[in-house]
C-alpha cells in the first residue's frame, strides 16, 4: 500500500512539474498584433466574394500539379459533428457542383478522431485514385505526419480550418484567426461597459487552439480595460449547462457582459437572463441564425464575430485552381473575417433558414440555396 501511495505521489509530481514546464503558448503578442491589423486591413480579390479574397501577395506555384479532368478530389474531413461543420460541408458540396471538371468527389469522415483520420488518409492514398487531397485536420500536430505522407506521394494537398505544422501543402486556407475573433468580441464588450464591470467568460472546452486564442485575446483586453472577469466556465457546448452556469452566477450577483468563445450556446445564455427576469446585458455570440434573431427580437447590445463557413468553398476553389495549374494564394490563404454588428444585422437575418445555420456562409448566391442548407424559399 505504501508503495502504491508513493507511486501515485510520484506520478502527481511528474504531472505537475511537466505541466509547469510546457503549458502551450496561446498568448502570442506578435500574432495578436498581426491578426488585429488583418481585421481592418485590405484584402485582394472581389469584395462581393469574400471567399475569393486573400491577404498579402504571396502566391504558390502549382504548375507541376496541372492535370486534365475529370479529377477525383478526395476530402478527409475531421467530422461533421457540429452545425458549423455541417453548414461548411454543404457549402463545399455545392461548390463542387460549380466545377464540372470534378468527376468524383470522395468524402471520408473521421468522426472526430485523430487516429481514424490518419487511417482514412492512409486508405485514400492506398486507393490511389485521388487527383488532389483536401484535409480539414482534426488536430494540428497529430495530422502532420499523415499530411506529410500525402505530400510525399506527390498529391497536391490543400489544408483548411485547423492547420498542420508543415508547409508541404499547396496552401492552408483559413480566416484571420482566433485572436481576431477575440478582439472583435472583446472590443464590443469594452465599448459598451465601463471599467469595473463584471464579465462572465463562457468557453466551449479547453485546449482547442482557435478557441484558446480567442479567449486569451479577449482576456488580455479585459484586464487592460479594467473589467472584472467573474469567471471562465466551460460549457461543453451544452445549452442546459450554459443556462445553469449563468443562473448560478446571476444568483450571486450582477453580470454586465457575457463574452463567449463560440456562439453555439449564446441563446441559452440570453434565455437565462430572460427567465430570471433580468435585462439582457452585453452578449457576444456568433453568426448562428437563432442568436441573430434573438438579438434582434430582444434588442440587447450584441455582436456576432464570425469564423466564416465560406472557407469550405475556398478549399475546393484552391484545389481546382491547383489542378488547373493556376497560382493560388499560398502557403497561406488568409480569408477576411467580418463581424456582424448592429448596423448590418438585418442583412444577415433570414427567418427561412434553420436556427443553427451560420449566416456568414457566402452561400446566398449558390444555385442550391436555400434548400441545400435546410432553408425554405
Amino acid at each position: 500500500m505504501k508503495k502504491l501511495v508513493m507511486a501515485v505521489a510520484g506520478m502527481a509530481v511528474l504531472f505537475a512539474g511537466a505541466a509547469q514546464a510546457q503549458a502551450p503558448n496561446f498568448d502570442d503578442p506578435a500574432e495578436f498584433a498581426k491578426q488585429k491589423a488583418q481585421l481592418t486591413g485590405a484584402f485582394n480579390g472581389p469584395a462581393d466574394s469574400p471567399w475569393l479574397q486573400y491577404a498579402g501577395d504571396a502566391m504558390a506555384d502549382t504548375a507541376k500539379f496541372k492535370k486534365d479532368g475529370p479529377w477525383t478530389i478526395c476530402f478527409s474531413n475531421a467530422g461533421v459533428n457540429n452545425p458549423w461543420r455541417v453548414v461548411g460541408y454543404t457549402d463545399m458540396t455545392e461548390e463542387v457542383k460549380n466545377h464540372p471538371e470534378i468527376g468524383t468527389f470522395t468524402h471520408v469522415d473521421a468522426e472526430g478522431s485523430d487516429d481514424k483520420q490518419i487511417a482514412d488518409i492512409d486508405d485514400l492514398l492506398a486507393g490511389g485514385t485521388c487527383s488532389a487531397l483536401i484535409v480539414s485536420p482534426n488536430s494540428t500536430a497529430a495530422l502532420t505526419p499523415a499530411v506529410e505522407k500525402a505530400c510525399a506521394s506527390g498529391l497536391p494537398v490543400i489544408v483548411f480550418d485547423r492547420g498542420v505544422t508543415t508547409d508541404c501543402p499547396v496552401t492552408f486556407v483559413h480566416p484571420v484567426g482566433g485572436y481576431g475573433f477575440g478582439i472583435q468580441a472583446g472590443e464590443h464588450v469594452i465599448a459598451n461597459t465601463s471599467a469595473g464591470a463584471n464579465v462572465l467568460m463562457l468557453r466551449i472546452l479547453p485546449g482547442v487552439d482557435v478557441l484558446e486564442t480567442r479567449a486569451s485575446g479577449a482576456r488580455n483586453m479585459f484586464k487592460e480595460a479594467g473589467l472584472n472577469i467573474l469567471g471562465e466556465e466551460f460549457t461543453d457546448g451544452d445549452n442546459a449547462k450554459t443556462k445553469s452556469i449563468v443562473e448560478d452566477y446571476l444568483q450571486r450577483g450582477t453580470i454586465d457582459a457575457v463574452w463567449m468563445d463560440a456562439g453555439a450556446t449564446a441563446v441559452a445564455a440570453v434565455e437565462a437572463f430572460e427567465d430570471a427576469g433580468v435585462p439582457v446585458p452585453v452578449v457576444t455570440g456568433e453568426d448562428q441564425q437563432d442568436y441573430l434573431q434573438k438579438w434582434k427580437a430582444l434588442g440587447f447590445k450584441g455582436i456576432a464575430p464570425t469564423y466564416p463557413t465560406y472557407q469550405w468553398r475556398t478549399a475546393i476553389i484552391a484545389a481546382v485552381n491547383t489542378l488547373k495549374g493556376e497560382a493560388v494564394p499560398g502557403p497561406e490563404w488568409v480569408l477576411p473575417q467580418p463581424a456582424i454588428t448592429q448596423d448590418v444585422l438585418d442583412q444577415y437575418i433570414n427567418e427561412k433558414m434553420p436556427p443553427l445555420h451560420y449566416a456568414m456562409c457566402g452561400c446566398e448566391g449558390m444555385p442550391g440555396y436555400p434548400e441545400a442548407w435546410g432553408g425554405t424559399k
Partner: protein
Amino acid sequence: MTEQTLSTPGSARRRLLQINPVYVLLVALLVAIVLLNPAFMEPQGYMNYLKRAAALAILSGGALYVIVAGGFDLSVGAMMTLTVIGSSMLASNDPNSTYWIIPLMLGIGALVGLINGLVVSYLRVPSLIATLGMMITLTGVAFVWSGGAPRGYLPDTFRFFGRFNITGVPLVNIFPVAIICLVVFGLILWWGMHRTNLGRMIHAIGDNQRAARLAGVPVERVRITAFIVSSMSAVVAGVILGGRAGVSVDIGSGYELQAITAAVLGGAQLLGGRGSVPAAMAGALALEAIFTLLNLLGLPQPVRQVVQGLILIGAVALAMYRRKRTGR
C-alpha cells in the same frame, strides 16, 4: 445460504439505519449549498435547482425500470437527442404542432423501447450491447433526419414544459412547469413500480428470471414493458430538457450514464431485483446538487469529475458494506 435467521424485530435505531443513505446525502448537500449561498433559500434558487434536475430525475426513474428488471438502457441519452431534434424538424415553427408532436415522440419512444426489449428478449443480445447499438443507431438517425443540424425551432408551446414559470403563485411567487412535470411523472413512475403488478413482476424477473418464468410471469412482456417505460421517460426528459435548453445537436449525450449513476446512488442493485423510484429520483437530485455545490465552491471542471468519480465508487462501496453487515 439457508441458515435460519431470526432477526430481531426492528428497533427504532435499526429502522433509522435502514433509511436509504441517498436521502441523508441529499439533505447534507442541500444544507451545504444553503450555507455557501443563502440565496438558495429564495424560491428562485431552489426552484431553479429543481427545474434543472427535473429531466434527469424523470429519466432516472424510468431507467430504474430496466435496472430493476436486470438490464441496462444506454440508449436513453440518444433517445432524448432524437426527441429534441425530431421535434424541431417536425415543428416547422408552428405552435400548434406541439399537440401532435409530443404524442408522436412518445410513440417513437415506445417503439424504440419495444425494439430494445425484443432484441434483448428474443435475440438474446445482452442489454448492455443491445442498447449500446441502439444508442449509436438513434444518434445516427437523428443526424440523418436533420442532416447534421436541426432545421427548426422548438415552438414556445413545446418549450412550455421545460422553460415556463408560473408566476404570482402565493408563497413561492414562481413555480416552474417542469416541477409539475417532475411531480406528475414521478408519481406515475412510483405508482407503476411500487403499486402495480407490473412493478412487482419487474422485481421478480430481475431477481430470478427463470423462477419468475416458471411461476407464470410473462417475462418477455414484462421486460419489454420495462424498456418501453425507460424509452418513454427518455422522451419526456427530452421534452423537458429541450424546453429548458432549446435545440442543439447532442443534447442528450452522457445522460445515460448519469441516469444509471443516479439510480445507483439511490441504492438500486445493478443486475436487478432491487430499487426504488423515489430513491433513484433523490439520487438524480443529489447528483445535480453535487454539480451545483462544486460550482458554488468555484472548483474547476476537472475537480468536479474527480469528485463525481469518488462519490460514485464510495456510494456503491458503502452500499455493499452495509448489505454485508446487515446480513445477506
